[in-house]
């Protein structure tokens, strides 16, 4: 599959990435080549194969991982906000949503 520069722009939009003209020119042939490479999978007949649904082993799938619905200790507001670029009055402040 040939991925064009305008495809790259669309993908970047979906991924919330701003990319430069230079990056667009670099990524288009590289991602085309990788996508063409992975398309070799089309040669395999998978019509009767169930897809894998993650990485779990059979033992992992059998492991009970639910717990009682009880309150557990957590970070708390102060600690959770300590690393924020722009905390304000107990919140994460962000630029205006509608530009």
């Amino acid at each position, binding site marked *: 599959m040939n*991925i064009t520069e305008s*495809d*790259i722009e669309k*993908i*970047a939009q*979906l*991924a*919330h*990435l*701003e*990319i430069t003209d230079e*990056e667009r020119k*670099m*990524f288009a042939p*590289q*991602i085309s*080549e*990788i*996508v063409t*490479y*992975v*398309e*070799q*999978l*089309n040669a*395999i007949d*998978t019509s009767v*194969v*169930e*897809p*894998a*649904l*993650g*990485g*779990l*082993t*059979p*033992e*992992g799938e*059998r*492991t*009970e*991982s639910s*717990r009682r619905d009880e309150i557990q200790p957590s*970070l708390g507001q102060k*600690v*959770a906000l*300590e*690393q*924020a*670029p*722009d905390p304000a009055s107990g919140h*994460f402040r*962000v*630029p*205006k*949503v*509608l*530009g």
Partner: protein
Amino acid sequence: MESISQLTDLIARGETSARATVEAALDRAETLNESLNAFLAIDREGAVKRAEEIDAGQSAGETSLHGVPIAIKDNICVRGMQTSCGSRILGPYQPPYNATAIDRLLQAGAIVIGKTNCDEFAMGSSNENSAFGPVRNPWDTSRVPGGSSGGSAAAVAAGIVPVALGSDTGGSVRQPASLCGVIGLKPTYGRVSRYGLVAFGSSLDQIGVFARNATDAALVLQTIAGRDPHDATTADVPVPNYADALKSDINGMRIGVSRALLGEGLDAEVRAAIEKAIDAYKDLGAEIVDVDLPHAKYAIAVYYIIATAEASSNLARYDGVRYGFRAEEAPALRDMYRKTRDEGFGPEVKRRIMLGTYVLSAGYYDAYYLKAQKVRMLLRQDFANAFARCDAVVTPTSPTPAFKFGEKVDDPLAMYLNDVYTVTANLAGVPGISVPCGLSSEGLPIGMQLLGPYWSEANLLRLTHAYQTAHPFEGTPKIHA
């Protein structure tokens, strides 16, 4: 350099102290970092303080890692230290909690001396994708240490620490171990908690161990393995005594060889070293059987769909809101996200996020992502069939010894093909270990990989121990303490 048991014995007998041991490791780390760039942060103050507490008996007494210095890849959270993942987007981030593996190591008496350099978000096979410059290979500083856990591999190879932790999503522990001449163990998916490991490909990621001998690797795995309520993907499977497993011989064990994996694209010297290792196992009483992994040749294609898809989703959280770096001068929220991610991520991370976004996007999901998950299932069946006939499969870890900086950096697909032998274990969820098995004519380490059925780490360590006892790895890197 001493093994873990030698170190803990010396400390227990009072011939040295945790403080002296840790200060020596810190000195080596600081001195060698000028040539290796293996550490992104060295915590002298914290490590010495902890060593003093251990010497004063304020930590639990006789513990398995009492006073042992350890290095941790900078994508595993250690409270009070940075976690950068080799990226600018995490800015000055300091996690407010320890990864479960770290809590368990600390409880066993280990002392974290620093955080090691890696490819950004563990994406790379050469360390050239670190935002803070690459780690250099201690055997030849013009060559890559492998990736992504290159800093941890180099720190162990150079004799800075006896053991280190890395993470392995497609070979990021085993491949740098191979290129740096140390042991690298990737456990079964669900053996070690991923809580506190920064997520890349959640169905593939496992924390792994670097060591110089099987006994040390066994001790560290013993400490970090097991169920953790904080990670629902850890399995309720008893953790065996790994050190005990090393005591028995390997007579009668069956080792599988896939001839197809020793063909095209493999360096002749690597092939010769693997053939020699296979003969060595025969001499040790193992039975060699032919196995076939017919879908292994598709593993890179499957991996680069699934790993990038999971990464595109996992890395969506880096948006400049809750922690880490935020770009300045963005008038509206959407611009802030885009600018932050533009300035914060390097080119390989962007490439993978975009590839993952593409294969998951409307109209392409079935053709790429679903198809890859089906072939992943076929690969799992290949391994199940192979392990019905043998206890472990031996392959090279990497198709070549360490390559030069810049050699593959402009050709992402060529770089991805380095992972041809390692990605299969992550896709199938099985454990794998890389073991040094020789030096090339240029004096560079060559590693063999042993892959086993789920939960067979004890057998893999036993096979490693038997091989290393009969064939100790000769040679010392140029850069060495």
